[in-house]
């Protein structure tokens, strides 16, 4: 039986930031995930956007957290040694109705305290972003919008948490939770865990984890989206481009920190989790020409599907704000956290950690180090030719916990280039095997 003060169920970006922030206090924390790596679920497939915060309902928790989180993002990414690109965004409209909708969002953004928002004419938008279609009639420019790689950020938070004393328990799926006068007993497919507090950050399973002990207050309906990734050398916009659309069925174009252009379809029903759909891919291909006519779709190198959790009340009303359920002070569930979850992950982690500090009545940890320790591990032997990743970096990723080719990819980017791993995967499998056998 493992003992700890706080058990975090779910090692996605929310769980990782909960763990990191708990380490600011004299609290022992255990991060539990069923997969053999962190950030393998919802964190792995999303738009990678750090939102400015103009689109949230004024007065909501999302509104307040997003602006604060956005302002803090440069510091956060410097601490965690993760690239962040504050490239700004343009939400573009095509015609008077769209123009009016953007004007409304501008007002909302100003109310929410977003800095630098401007409503631009089509011409001014094109001056800022020459790749935009001539049909764009106006654009809402938000200079504070940015992009970060979501799984790099989550893994960085995880490593910083471990560095400061958090304990991981991966490959362990929660099967049941009981409680007694001393606290909680979490049963899993392996060891049991005894703890005083539980943070439920279980992503697409967060409603079910909550219902292990408490009546259903929030239900999740999962939907999906399709993504296309273009080669780094393909011409791309300088800014994140949102397509304003009345029914929310617009696409998004993101020039990612790695240099690839990411194209996102609107939400659609989820079929097979993380699978792409023909319709979604076709929709992106059709629509991108209307907004960015010069994007060369023959440069697509990969497609993937996302899963998004949508929280609903038990009587089927959509919940628009962050769902933080606290049925008792010692059990907090983050249920159905979606946009702007990535942006607010650290803020949500801070919120949870502060709750723990109060409940457990502990002091701040004097030697908490917010800066992730990174070693320069690159050497001269290039293994992934497309992304120019060396043997040293791959071995470092394996030592940091990567157990599969996918996990190495998530840490150092191997296999994300033009050949999509067809030239380096075998060699990386060999390194993993040799590490497992202890022959390296």
């Amino acid at each position, binding site marked *: 039986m493992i003992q700890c003060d706080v058990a975090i169920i779910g090692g996605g970006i929310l769980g990782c930031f909960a763990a990191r922030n708990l380490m600011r206090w004299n609290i022992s924390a255990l991060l539990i995930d069923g997969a053999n790596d962190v950030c393998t679920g919802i964190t792995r497939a999303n738009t990678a956007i750090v939102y400015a915060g103009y689109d949230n309902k004024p007065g909501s928790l999302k509104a307040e957290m997003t602006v604060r989180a956005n302002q803090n993002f440069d510091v956060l990414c410097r601490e965690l040694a993760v690239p962040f690109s504050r490239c700004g965004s343009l939400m573009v409209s095509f015609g008077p109705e769209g123009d009016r909708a953007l004007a409304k969002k501008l007002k909302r953004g100003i109310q929410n305290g977003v800095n630098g928002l401007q409503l631009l004419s089509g011409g001014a938008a094109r001056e800022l972003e020459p790749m935009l279609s001539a049909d764009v009639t106006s654009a809402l420019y938000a200079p504070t919008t940015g992009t970060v790689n979501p799984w790099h950020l989550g893994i960085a938070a995880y490593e910083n948490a471990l560095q400061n004393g958090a304990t991981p328990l991966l490959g362990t799926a929660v099967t049941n939770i009981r409680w007694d006068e001393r606290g909680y007993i979490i049963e899993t497919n392996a060891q049991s865990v005894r703890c005083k507090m539980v943070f439920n950050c279980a992503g697409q399973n967060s409603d079910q984890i909550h219902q292990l002990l408490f009546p259903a207050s929030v239900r999740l309906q999962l939907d999906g989206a399709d993504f296309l990734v273009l080669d780094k050398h393909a011409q791309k916009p300088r800014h994140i481009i949102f397509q304003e659309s009345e029914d929310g069925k617009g696409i998004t174009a993101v020039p990612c920190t790695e240099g690839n252009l990411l194209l996102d379809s609107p939400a659609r029903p989820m079929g097979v989790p993380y699978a792409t759909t023909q319709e979604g891919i076709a929709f992106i291909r059709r629509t991108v020409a209307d907004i960015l006519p010069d994007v060369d779709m023959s440069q697509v190198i990969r497609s993937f599907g996302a899963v998004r959790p949508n929280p609903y009340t038990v009587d089927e009303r959509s919940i628009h704000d962050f769902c933080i359920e606290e049925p008792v002070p010692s059990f907090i569930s983050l249920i159905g956290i979606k946009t702007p979850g990535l942006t607010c992950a650290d803020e949500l982690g801070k919120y949870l950690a502060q709750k723990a500090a109060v409940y457990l009545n502990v002091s701040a940890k004097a030697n908490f180090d917010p800066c992730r320790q990174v070693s320069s591990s690159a050497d*001269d032997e290039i293994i992934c030719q497309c992304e120019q990743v060396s043997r040293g970096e791959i071995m470092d990723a394996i030592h940091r916990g990567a157990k599969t080719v996918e996990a190495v990819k998530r840490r150092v980017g191997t296999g994300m280039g033009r050949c999509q791993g067809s030239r380096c995967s075998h060699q990386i499998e060999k390194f993993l095997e040799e590490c497992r056998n202890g022959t390296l």
Partner: protein
Amino acid sequence: MEHYDILIIGAGAAGIAAAKAAYQAGSRSILLVDRKAEPGGVLLQCMHHGFGNGMNGPDYVKKLLAEFPVEISCHMNTSVLSVTNTREAFLSGPEIGRKTVHFHQLILAAGCLEIPFGALPIAGTRPTGIYSAGQLQELMNLHAFLPEGPVVILGSGDLGLIMAKHILDAGIPIAALVEQKSSCGGMARNQRFLVNAEIPLRFNSTIAEVYGHPQLECVRLSDGSVIPCRTLLIAAGMRPDRTLLHRLGQPEWLHLCGNCSKVHPMVEAVVQEGKQVGYAAAAALNKTIEKR
């Protein structure tokens, strides 16, 4: 900084031919680099007898390397990170460390890249069991790997046909060879084995979706039919690898040969092109020396 009159990137058939030709034309300052441990490029993984007079790839490489001049410098296990407009190349490898090399003429013989599965508009999951044809050729021929059957192959060009024969010869069943045109794309001699082979040929067809997680279970074709399989081989074609030329424009000191110039079906044409480019590079060098 080291200087070479001619830098040749890629020691496959094209690069070897270019090096020998430049030497024959009088150049004595030549550097040939390749990311692999041995010269030969993709030929090293080609075990079918499709080269010269019925030789396999490695034997053909031996023939190309016969009497290879020792004065030609070679750096194997060396990657070229980038090339600049000021005629510098950044090299990296365990034997040489990191090195910048200046050159007068550059011959790019970097070969081609396969169109990956991810570039195709195929919906569905992303399971294990999906390989590109060249990737599986290397795995089978150099690493004793056997894919799990049944296998579905997408694309009936030369490489798709060659791999189909390999897979059948290894005793692994092929559930379908899917081709978007109305007939096989590859050369007649690569199609010969089909006469006696039990491979369902699906022409005017493409793959719409893949199913299965974490492992491939089946594919759905454009006509709606579902084919159970454990391996999907993507032989969708190749594109010249011009990655290193990304910011260079078209300087007069740059020469392309082999599959990075255009994808060649026959190695003899590659060797011929390499020779021409080797002579041209040496000639350009001589002209400059004469001018001085």
